[in-house]
């Protein structure tokens, strides 16, 4: 295992094993990001083709924004993380690692917010269900 003192610096370093692990994570993340983007575009496209289901354009716009925040944006950030991490790992570019970890942070922030909102919605709806039942 690598010791920071071996590199002559107190800063931590990414060992070749860690960079390889990041590269492998980027491969899976790219697949997941692509699937998310393709899936959300299909769902949004299918919904857009059936405007009659909504009372107005605003109804669709609200649906598209909510769906975009829940699925499309995290998928895009995951895809961005994958691309940047791959370029950084292959080229050894630290600036690309900055952007990759920034995209990963964005992905985790959005997922956390959505997760929290879903749990809150679950609790609120459960309480409504219990009070009516």
């Amino acid at each position: 295992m690598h010791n920071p003192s071996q590199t002559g610096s107190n800063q931590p370093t990414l060992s070749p094993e860690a960079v390889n692990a990041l590269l492998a994570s980027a491969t899976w993340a790219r697949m997941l990001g692509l699937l998310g983007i393709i899936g959300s575009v299909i769902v949004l496209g299918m919904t857009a083709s059936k405007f009659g289901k909504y009372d107005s354009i605003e109804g669709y716009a609200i649906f598209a924004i909510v769906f975009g925040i829940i699925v499309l944006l995290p998928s895009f950030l995951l895809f961005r993380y994958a691309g940047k991490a791959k370029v950084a790992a292959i080229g050894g570019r630290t600036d690309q690692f900055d952007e990759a970890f920034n995209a990963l942070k964005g992905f985790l922030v959005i997922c956390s917010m959505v997760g929290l909102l879903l749990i809150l919605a679950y609790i609120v709806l459960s309480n409504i269900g219990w009070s009516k039942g």
Partner: protein
Amino acid sequence: MNNLNQDLLSNDLIVTPAMQDNLSAAAKWGRFLAIVGFITCVLMLIGGLWVANKGLGYFYSQQQAMTLGITYAVMAVLFFFPCLFLFKFSTNTLEASRTSNQDSLESGIVNLKLMFRFIGIVTLIMIILYVLGIIFAVIFASR
């Protein structure tokens, strides 16, 4: 892929302060998300047990209630592992940023890889099952 990068990855990459900041922030949110995920797992497990035991009034048969309960439990177990990997990534990365411990950083990144790999494999299996389900549904519907 390993052979391709062997020369490029022969030296350690120094983690810059900007990288460290982004990684630490990602780890903090990751820990939060993992905890939310653990809570969701517990809620799913409780929901599954409730449906399997007392959900009979809402369903036509005991078999339906049991099937739904078991499905919830299996989903909770499947959901637990990525949360665990994410939690390990977060705690190890945060420890690495505090102590500059190389092993913790590497362990954190390996757990990030494990998380994405697990979710990727489960997603692929789900897609294959969906496609097979559609094919079987079409076959049975056409009979």
